[in-house]
């Protein structure tokens, strides 16, 4: 038996050093797949490769070696149109199928991914440079699980989602140039045969986004990317009649208290930033009493991290290409110049594409770097003294993506988990994902959701929603819309009894004189002067938003039951006022019988929402996780509402009730033509509800809309008014990326339960937070 057929020249040496060696994952299959396309990738549309002539192409490079792997065609407007056309054709078939059939197809796609998983993960890791382990062990299984989860949902949709319909248009994905994995996925889906056009992938620059959005038939645009890109897209798509959902930024937060298992929390930091799991950097808040200990452990841990080629099976972190590296480098240099300490460690190859794990501390809180988003693979650590301070610091940024809390004290962990304004909070873990749990954010991280029930509603609309009508006014001047308030002059003698409610704006629980000290006349249906209401302006909105903010903590702190009781009391007060309110409505041309019905319905709405809001939040069960995930429904904060002109009382109450029931505080602009019933309700609000909870500002609707839409501290805005107003609101919301709901000039049947009190209002009146609570001892 001759043993020496293969020799190991280095074994002796390795035996002494016990170093790690290269553990390359073969990417031959990825290259072979690229070869099937002759290293020349087009778009995948309607189940076929589309490789139009005369297009620019960009090289797809290995981020580590710089080797050209393939060239990718850049789409042009015609290609986009072709893809949308394919999707529209496919929709006709697809949307009329029974749910069970769709479920079957999704399951088949999941299986297809399973069959070709090696190809998928090697290709993805090859071109992105991410550690293959993360793609193989997390991304690919998660993709399959998401498909399976939605297959289950499709099975039950006829019952579970009755009353909802698809938004329309199947999927067209615009991927940044040189990312072939989505194309491969589309090919896998296309090769299933039955419904070729349901997934179409075209590659091209972000500038094609608006072109894609403006295609007829497109109803919904979901965008993942940088915050500024999202903001720009929001502005460009204003008035296009589309639903736009944004998932922006990638920074995460880790809150480490003195009651934490520090070693495990340090692993959490590694998971969050240095394991190629997330796209962004991390802000790390450490309680001062464990600062030194944590830093020692963190730095020791960093020393053992390995950086290298993503396709190596033994690295923690790959490379992300020149752009990501330069971004990190720039941030570090700036932070240093602003006085920060920088610590870098780990086993990092010296050649250029790699960037070492980096820990930044002592960054002055007021420095520009402390405000900007932390890029990959950086961790910016800062101390805090108490849990209260931690919340203030953590919530003191425009970002609201994901966070983890590390504390072994249950009470403290929950306090922090509930207090963080984030889309996802993990307790004593970081970066867990599951298809049954919604993933999303709030504030400038965008309020779009993926997975779980929230992910479903993203693509559904209440049955009977009118089809999208392009209502874009090209000549709407955003700079001047609603800027000037027309001056009001005395409008002749007041006829009839003068309005019962005191004159003024209802702000902070009492009627106040408007800042402008001027008034606007209100006419009844016969054109006679009914009375004057106060002319509100920018200063009044500022005051109202401030009052609402002050009332917010108290209202959020109330139990849903207590809120329901107060809404009930308000309903009772309205009932007592019925005849006065009906008379008021009658004066504006409503038949007495109808007016009475409107008051009655308003009373019902208040009561109904009080009861509905009692059942909020529920537990999701996640495979492979011991412990629950809570899907919390939290208030948006200060919600601004511009009520429609029609149904002056009913629409006002129908909007107010769900907003209050879900714990928001509100600033409302009542009907322009008939604001008096709303002011009348305020008289009861003044005596029954806490001051500042409800604020009603009358005046020029465009002007007030402008003030609220541009207000950075208004957390959400509902607008029911003109086409132009809707467009302006969408445009202006880009400032703080507040979620907006606009009617695009379309009337709404407020007296119908589906539109006036449907589940859509409840969904819009609160935001989701997924709170992960792993357990074990």
């Amino acid at each position: 038996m001759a043993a020496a057929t293969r020799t190991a020249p280095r074994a002796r040496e390795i035996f002494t050093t016990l170093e790690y060696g290269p553990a390359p994952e073969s990417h031959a299959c990825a290259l072979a797949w690229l070869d099937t396309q002759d290293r020349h990738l087009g778009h995948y549309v309607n189940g076929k490769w589309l490789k139009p002539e005369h297009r620019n192409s960009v090289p797809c490079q290995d981020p580590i070696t710089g080797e050209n792997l393939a060239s990718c065609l850049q789409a042009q407007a015609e290609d986009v149109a072709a893809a949308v056309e394919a999707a529209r054709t496919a929709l006709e078939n697809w949307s009329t199928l029974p749910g069970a059939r769709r479920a079957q197809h999704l399951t088949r796609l999941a299986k297809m991914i399973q069959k070709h998983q090696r190809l998928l993960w090697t290709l993805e890791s090859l071109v992105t440079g991410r550690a293959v382990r993360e793609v193989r062990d997390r991304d690919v299984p998660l993709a399959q699980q998401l498909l399976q989860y939605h297959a289950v949902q499709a099975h039950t949709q006829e019952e579970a989602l009755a009353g909802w319909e698809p938004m329309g248009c199947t999927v067209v994905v615009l991927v940044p140039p040189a990312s072939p994995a989505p194309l491969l996925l589309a090919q896998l889906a296309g090769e299933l045969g039955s419904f070729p056009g349901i997934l179409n992938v075209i590659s091209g620059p972000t500038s094609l986004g608006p072109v894609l959005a403006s295609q007829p038939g497109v109803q919904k645009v979901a965008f993942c990317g940088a915050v500024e890109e999202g903001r720009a897209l929001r502005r460009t798509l204003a008035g296009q009649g589309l639903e736009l959902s944004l998932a922006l930024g990638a920074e995460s937060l880790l809150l480490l208290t003195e009651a934490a298992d520090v070693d495990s929390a340090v692993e959490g930091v590694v998971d969050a930033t240095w394991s190629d799991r997330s796209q962004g950097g991390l802000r790390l808040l450490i309680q001062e009493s464990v600062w030194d200990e944590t830093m020692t452990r963190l730095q020791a841990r960093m020393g053992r991290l390995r950086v290298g080629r993503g396709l190596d099976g033994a690295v923690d972190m790959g490379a992300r290409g020149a752009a990501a590296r330069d971004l990190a480098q720039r941030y570090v240099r700036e932070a240093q110049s602003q006085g920060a300490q920088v610590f870098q460690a780990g086993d990092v190859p010296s050649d250029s594409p790699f960037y070492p794990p980096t820990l930044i501390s002592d960054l002055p809180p007021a420095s520009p770097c402390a405000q900007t988003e932390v890029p990959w693979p950086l961790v910016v650590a800062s101390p805090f003294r108490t849990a209260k301070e931690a919340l203030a610091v953590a919530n003191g940024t425009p970002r609201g993506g994901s966070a983890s809390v590390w504390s072994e004290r249950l009470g403290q962990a929950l306090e922090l988990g509930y207090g963080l304004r984030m889309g996802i909070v993990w307790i004593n873990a970081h970066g867990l994902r599951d298809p049954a749990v919604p993933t999303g954010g709030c504030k400038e991280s965008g309020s779009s959701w993926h997975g779980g029930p929230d992910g479903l509603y993203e693509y559904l609309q209440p049955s009977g929603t009118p089809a999208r009508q392009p209502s874009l006014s090209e000549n709407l001047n955003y700079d001047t819309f609603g800027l000037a308030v027309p001056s009001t002059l005395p409008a002749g003698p007041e006829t009839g009894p003068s309005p019962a409610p005191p004159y003024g704006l209802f702000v902070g629980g009492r009627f106040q004189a408007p800042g402008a000290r001027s008034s606007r006349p209100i006419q009844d249906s016969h054109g006679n002067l009914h009375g004057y209401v106060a002319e509100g302006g920018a200063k009044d909105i500022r005051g109202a938003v401030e009052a609402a903010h002050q009332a917010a903590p108290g209202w959020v702190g109330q139990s849903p039951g207590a809120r329901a009781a107060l809404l009930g009391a308000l309903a009772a007060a309205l009932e007592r006022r019925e005849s006065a309110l009906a008379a008021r409505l009658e004066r504006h041309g409503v038949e007495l019988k109808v007016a009475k019905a409107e008051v009655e319905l308003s009373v019902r709405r208040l009561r109904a929402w009080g009861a509905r809001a009692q059942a909020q939040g529920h537990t999701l069960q996640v495979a492979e996780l011991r412990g629950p995930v809570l899907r919390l429904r939290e208030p948006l904060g200060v919600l601004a509402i511009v009520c429609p002109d029609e149904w002056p009382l009913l629409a006002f109450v129908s909007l107010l009730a769900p907003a209050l029931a879900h714990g928001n505080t509100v600033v409302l602009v009542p009907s322009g033509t008939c604001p008096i019933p709303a002011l009348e309700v305020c008289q009861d609000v003044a005596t029954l509800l806490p001051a500042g909870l409800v604020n009603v500002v009358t005046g020029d609707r465009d002007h007030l809309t402008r003030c609220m839409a541009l207000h950075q501290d208004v957390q959400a805005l509902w607008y029911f008014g003109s086409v132009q107003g809707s467009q302006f609101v969408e445009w202006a919301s880009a400032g703080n990326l507040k979620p907006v709901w606009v009617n695009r000039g379309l009337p709404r049947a407020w007296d119908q339960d589906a539109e006036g009190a449907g589940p859509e209002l409840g969904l819009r009146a609160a935001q989701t937070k997924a709170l992960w609570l792993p357990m074990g001892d």
Partner: protein
Amino acid sequence: MGVPIFITAVTNCCWIGADNCVILGILGTDLSWISKVQVNHPAVLRRAQQVQARRTVKKEWQAAWLLKAVTFIDLTTLSGDDTSSNVQRLCYKAKYPIREDLLKALNMHDKDITTAAVCVYPARVCDAVRALKAAGCNIPVASVATGFPAGQTHLKTRLEEIRLAVEDGASEIDVVINRSLVLTGQWEALYDEIRQFRKACGEAHLKTILATGELGSLTNVYKASMIAMMAGSDFIKTSTGKETVNATFPVAIVMLRAIRDFFWKTGNKIGFKPAGGIRSAKDALAWLSLIKEELGDEWLKPELFRIGASTLLSDIERQIYHHVTGRYAAYHDLPMS
């Protein structure tokens, strides 16, 4: 949690042997870190899963690592039917763990690769010492003691067992702790017992088996590890191999973190020995990389790291065979142990 009592135990260092007072002097100045110790079970489980997925070695690296792993093995036989003949065979295997021609092919034949020790019941120590002497090597003999595996005998006999094993020539003693003391929170008594074991060992190395499968929680594992180290153990060992749950990664992570904390506080390096259930070469590699990741290269030597195993060695030999020849070995290609 019993921590306050524990602190008392440590601060009363006047009744503790003088050698240990140095360590306790260092620890005694700042004890708050012990009471703050928190072990989060689910987080440790996740880390345990990751650590196996994040590192791998291939080709020459794998072969070299496997040979290194051989030098960490406490080649063990702990059966009721052990006799002098199978102990003798074990000892011979300890001296020649890998076929000579395979080592030659790897150019490792002059590295004197043997297992770290052989580990037997006290009654077989004489056999082992004699066999190893006959084989002409100075591989240490480790003996289990103190009522192994349950530890449910009188302290007096447990101590006597140590003394006899040492007398017979065992230079390493694997003692089991009294689990009841951990479960009832009698940390002071536990400390005291291990101190007495230490004294009874004399010059012999003391490896303390925590029997982690029976300690109830990871926090208990951490505290027991800390006590064992403070009381003067040279090694802490996961399990006897006779519990239902033996050497697992989560438990190991907690023990390794305790070892690291102890080192940071006192400057003393304590060894670690997982035992029970480590059967495949792949497992062995994972254990090596776990040590490398959690403690660093300084711990990767037989003085600070052992693997208690019996069948592991033959699987390693098979893998080496495959590495060298490119073929999978038949059962009869490799000598039995």
